């Protein structure tokens, strides 16, 4: 049993880092501009499609990822400068509706341009899985803990990029401007921060991280128009869970969410076995579990597990 729990935690960490990086992107945009970006996953998906096209044309996966991520940044700037221009500062709900529209448009666009056939995006590297055996005393059945090499690499990359973005926001001048703008827009303006710049920066960073996360999951999900729809929900949950109040909270929220999800699945598995239920596969309940976690978090601790450092007006 210990092995199975540790196995679930390992898998949870790996998927959690991906939830975390998407949550971080959502949180960047939300905290800075006040918009919950419903088109987040689909913006990432479009970026991955662009990258896939580059891959087909040039056969260079590195170039594909670079172009895809850069495209994501430009897409973010486009959303901020063109789509949000008229409604910015007037109404958050109008901005929200725009992102909903963009969600549908992107899905349609992807269908028209690239079709419904799932496209393959090969693994960037193939690292063999590693098996870890616990000592006999803890592990009577002698089952190994499996660490899939590629998932582990993805976990490291996602964590590295997230830490980089968090450091960027804490140390660099544009990063500090972003934080100040997220805290108070007038406050930011009076110290001389150009909030048009910070808003575009948040959108650019946010969408490019979504594209990047898309590339990380693409070998598993294939490249298709709904590849990131669920991931957006997971990222959203991660951000709610971590309490939107800090960028680091969104990432750690993702990690915890991943682990929690896999542990709940394991627990359900055991229950189903115990009661002889074979009609439900607990893995299929992943989305339901995540949605339940959002609801439970919002009921018990709406400020997220880390809470807001300061409970200001909402």
């Amino acid at each position, binding site marked *: 049993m210990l092995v199975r729990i540790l196995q679930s935690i390992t898998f949870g960490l790996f998927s959690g880092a991906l939830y975390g990086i998407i949550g971080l992107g959502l949180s960047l945009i939300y905290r800075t501009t006040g918009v919950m970006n419903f088109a987040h996953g689909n913006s990432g998906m479009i970026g991955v499609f662009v990258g896939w096209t580059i891959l087909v044309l040039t056969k260079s996966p590195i170039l594909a990822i670079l172009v895809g991520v850069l495209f994501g940044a430009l897409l973010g700037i486009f959303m901020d400068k063109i789509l949000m221009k008229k409604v910015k500062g007037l109404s958050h709900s109008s901005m929200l509706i725009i992102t909903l529209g963009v969600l549908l448009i992107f899905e349609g666009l992807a269908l028209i341009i690239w079709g419904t056939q799932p496209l393959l995006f090969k693994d960037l590297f193939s690292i063999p899985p590693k098996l870890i055996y616990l000592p006999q005393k803890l592990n009577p059945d002698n089952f190994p803990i499996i660490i899939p090499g590629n998932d582990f690499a993805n976990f490291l990359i996602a964590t590295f990029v997230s830490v980089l973005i968090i450091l960027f926001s804490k140390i660099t001048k544009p990063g500090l401007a972003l934080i100040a703008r997220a805290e108070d827009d007038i406050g930011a303006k*009076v110290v001389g921060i150009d909030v048009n710049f910070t808003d575009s920066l948040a959108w650019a960073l946010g969408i490019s991280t979504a594209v990047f996360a898309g590339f990380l999951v693409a070998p598993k999900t294939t490249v298709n128009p709904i590849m990131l729809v669920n991931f957006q929900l997971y990222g959203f949950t991660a951000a709610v869970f971590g309490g939107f109040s800090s960028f680091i909270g969104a990432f750690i929220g993702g990690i915890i969410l991943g682990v929690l999800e896999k542990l709940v699945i394991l627990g359900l598995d055991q229950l189903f076995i115990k009661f002889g239920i074979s009609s439900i596969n607990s893995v299929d309940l992943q989305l339901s579990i995540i949605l339940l976690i959002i609801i439970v978090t919002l009921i018990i601790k709406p400020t997220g597990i880390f809470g807001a450092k300061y409970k200001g007006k909402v």
Partner: protein
Amino acid sequence: MMLEINKFSVSYGKIEAVKSINLNLKEKEVVTVVGVNGAGKSSLLYGICGIVEAKGMIFFEDQDISKIPYSKRVKNGMILCPEGRRIFPSLSVEENLRLGSFSRGNIKKQLKIVYELFPKLNERKKQIAGYLSGGEQQMLAIGRALMGDPKILMLDEPSLGLAPIIVDQVYLALGELKKLGISILLIEQNAYQALSFADRAYILENGKVVIEGDSKKLLNEDSVRKAYLGI
């Protein structure tokens, strides 16, 4: 002339909040603009800073700045301490102050000045700003404005929502700033405080200047006392 505005108007859609105002401020002078709620005081300051759009001319140190964006105006040394304080609530006191030097001002030098002026901020520098009391938050907001080494400091109702004893403390601090030779444009509803503190005053009503002059004289004028001081 430190600041001069001519035929200056601020509108929100069809509503004109500030109607063709002329106002000037010499170097090291303290000028106050008083008026009741909705007289257009805050709009005037936001317009001068460039945070809201305005029509008319603004000269800062005899340069026309009416076309340059707010971030450049801050860089030139026009610094606003906005109404409602607008500090960064979940950052620490010192992080707030450091952000005050975002565009101009030497962090080390300005921090020393601010901490000397407000020793309480020094004591609380690691605290989360949102948890400070109202008076401390106001001091932090003024401190943050000072971090930008202002040539002209604009204060929007620094006494708003504070207990009388705290208001006195805030004005004591402003007196120190006056001694440092910073030009101050002070906006207040608390007319008595403001008129006693300033050199010159403008009285604003419905977006227009109705009276202007030496503030001590205005303080003793019967019509002003009746209409704006309630004495």
